[in-house]
């Protein structure tokens, strides 16, 4: 290989999204009329008049592994250290709708998250945590409606009123087909299930976010910041259209739509992408759907700092990356922030690194003072111009998707997936060639590099066995006839297009029906998604 460390890196005039960035920007770049004021349409400068003074962003760390007991212990640790919301990582069997005792599931039980195969696990997971007081976010998609139903069932058991529940389910299937892969059903019935949960949540859990339309995963897979926003807003429009088809009231459901993105290292591109996205969404809601209530025009979003921008070589550099990215998230006006831990590039974070990630947010929140004034970058010649540039680039990509025939068609035919793979290859080659600088990886490497800090997180290898054992026990102790009756009712309801499935799913959860059984009832009606393999 060529030794790039001897090549002097240069400041590129192109942003990572391929936007030509001028070296100087003058006052003529600022168009005050399209910017507006903080808390006012089109919300370029933020959705709240008083920024973070009214309410700080939520510090929310993604966590969960092994058994429900271990995860419960980690949650209490994080809450004790000042975390203000829970974020639940679920294992792949739960995400793909398999029970832990199935052959395909066994090697993955408890690996990338906690197993939540029945209500029994959920009861342990939230033991000692008052669901009426804490907000919980679930990264769950293919089985989102089921996990949401399970959360409501636990709340029922804890005696917490549903209107007290706050939190988020990701529930964004479209990006699963593109980048994350935990789809189960074909696109149409999946869209229905999402509409079911949103409509149900609007009335039953009015403070809960029943969807978090996510760009983070396409970004991590290779999309540029511009594509991340464009694909995500296009998906958002598809959900709005579906909800309207189901008779939803856009003034109502639009208030509960939220978004989720990655923040990578190009500081101003990241800040400006959020400002641009807020403006595009508000305008679409107002102009395309006639939404009048400002709250229903709001583009609310959470972010994750880190992800694929973190690398294993010289891992302590990642602390600096996460700090820079967190500042971009704050200046972009995020509602909740998850900071990756320095070792997240190669393992489940240790308690040390998890704590450091929380501390990073607290230092930026309470020591740096950057959150004191709302949108402090507003009016900067460059920031306003770059926001305009990103807005134009996003609208162009969204137009390309519409010209193709919309996101659903583009996904079913594998077109977006193919575009993303090509982009990912391009990004990889730019890093390999040293054109994109990654300090410690392709430039500024030390000869005798230690790639990982000393401490290694080890999953308890026996954890999966304990999960499977308890699952079997639940199967033996539950009232089998109740389970079967509830599953039959679910399957019958799934056959009727206009029937909301949430009450049936909640009923199933209460009988201790398993995730795999509920998915099985739905699959019997709907079949499975056929992945288009197109390279």
């Amino acid at each position, binding site marked *: 290989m*060529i030794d790039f460390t001897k090549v002097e890196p240069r400041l590129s005039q192109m942003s990572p999204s391929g936007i030509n960035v001028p070296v100087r920007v003058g006052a003529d770049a600022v168009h005050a009329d399209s910017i507006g004021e903080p808390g006012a349409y089109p919300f370029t400068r933020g959705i709240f008049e008083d920024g973070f003074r009214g309410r700080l962003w939520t510090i929310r760390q993604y966590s969960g592994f092994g058994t429900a007991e271990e995860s419960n212990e980690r949650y209490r640790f994080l809450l004790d250290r000042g975390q203000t919301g829970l974020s639940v990582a679920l294992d792949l069997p739960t995400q793909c709708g398999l029970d832990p005792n199935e052959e395909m599931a066994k*090697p993955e039980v408890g690996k990338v998250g906690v197993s939540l195969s029945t209500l029994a696990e959920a009861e342990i997971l939230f033991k000692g945590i008052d669901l009426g007081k804490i907000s919980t976010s679930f990264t769950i998609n293919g089985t989102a409606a089921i996990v949401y139903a399970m959360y409501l069932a636990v709340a029922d058991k804890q005696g917490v009123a549903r209107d007290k529940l706050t939190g988020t389910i990701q529930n964004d299937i479209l990006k699963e087909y593109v980048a994350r892969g935990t789809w189960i059903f074909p696109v149409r019935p999946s869209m229905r299930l999402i509409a079911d949960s949103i409509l149900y949540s609007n009335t039953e859990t009015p403070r809960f976010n029943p969807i978090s339309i996510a760009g983070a995963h396409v970004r991590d897979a290779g999309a540029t910041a511009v594509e991340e926003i464009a694909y995500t807003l296009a998906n958002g429009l598809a959900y709005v259209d579906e909800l309207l088809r189901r008779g939803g009231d856009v003034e109502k459901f639009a208030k509960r739509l939220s978004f989720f993105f990655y923040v990578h290292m190009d500081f101003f591109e990241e800040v400006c992408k959020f400002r641009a996205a807020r403006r595009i969404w508000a305008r679409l809601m107002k102009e395309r759907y006639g939404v009048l209530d400002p709250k229903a025009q709001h583009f609310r979003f959470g972010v994750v700092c880190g992800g694929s921008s973190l690398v294993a070589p010289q891992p302590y550099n990642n602390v600096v990356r996460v700090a820079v990215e967190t500042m971009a998230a704050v200046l972009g006006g995020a509602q909740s922030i998850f900071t990756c831990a320095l070792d997240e590039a*190669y393992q489940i974070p240790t308690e040390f690194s998890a704590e450091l990630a929380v501390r990073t947010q607290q230092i930026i929140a309470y020591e740096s003072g950057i959150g004191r004034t709302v949108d402090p970058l507003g009016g900067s010649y460059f920031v306003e111009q770059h926001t305009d540039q990103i807005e134009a680039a996003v609208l162009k990509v969204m137009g390309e998707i519409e010209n193709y025939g919309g996101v659903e068609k583009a996904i079913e035919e594998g077109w977006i997936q193919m575009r993303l793979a090509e982009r990912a290859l391009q990004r990889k080659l730019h890093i390999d060639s040293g054109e994109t600088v990654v300090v410690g990886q392709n430039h500024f490497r030390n000869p005798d590099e230690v790639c990982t800090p000393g401490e290694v997180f080890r999953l308890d290898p026996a954890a999966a066995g304990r999960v499977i054992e308890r699952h079997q026990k639940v199967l033996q102790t539950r009232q089998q006839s109740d389970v079967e009756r509830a599953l039959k009712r679910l399957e019958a309801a799934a056959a009727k297009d206009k029937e909301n499935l949430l009450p049936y799913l909640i009923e199933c959860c209460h009988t201790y029906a398993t995730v795999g059984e509920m998915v099985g009832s739905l699959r019997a009606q709907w079949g499975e998604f056929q992945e288009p393999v197109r390279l």
Partner: protein
Amino acid sequence: MTLKENNEARDRAETTLRGRRILVAKPGLDGHDIGAKIIALALRNAGAEVIYTGLRKSAQYIARTAIDEGVDAVGLSILSGSHCELVAQVVAHLREGGAGDTQVFVGGTIPESDHEQLKALGVRGIYTSDMPLERVINSLAMELN
């Protein structure tokens, strides 16, 4: 390595890979397929005939496909941490099907501490996302040569 040596290594790799059949597969439930697709595209650009399985395939399905398609090598992409179990399963099914000599490569989030275990299973190359693509392709070609 000089630029000239670098180009020579690439040419050698392309000569080796031309027309070779390689199966790129996603065993288990992990849905992160970009690494697999990047490798598939790079191998194809280097002249290989690439078959990509798509997501969530059982070890049995992957071994069956490898045998039916008569591939020279199987590349397994795993980012969920289940690589040791899944690789062992695929290798076992290949042997059972009388294709124990098929070369197996693994890519993904593979900690160094697991390399020995994977090599003991017969894995010829282990690749992580921070490796330059050209190095991955060259190393794979060298093993196939």
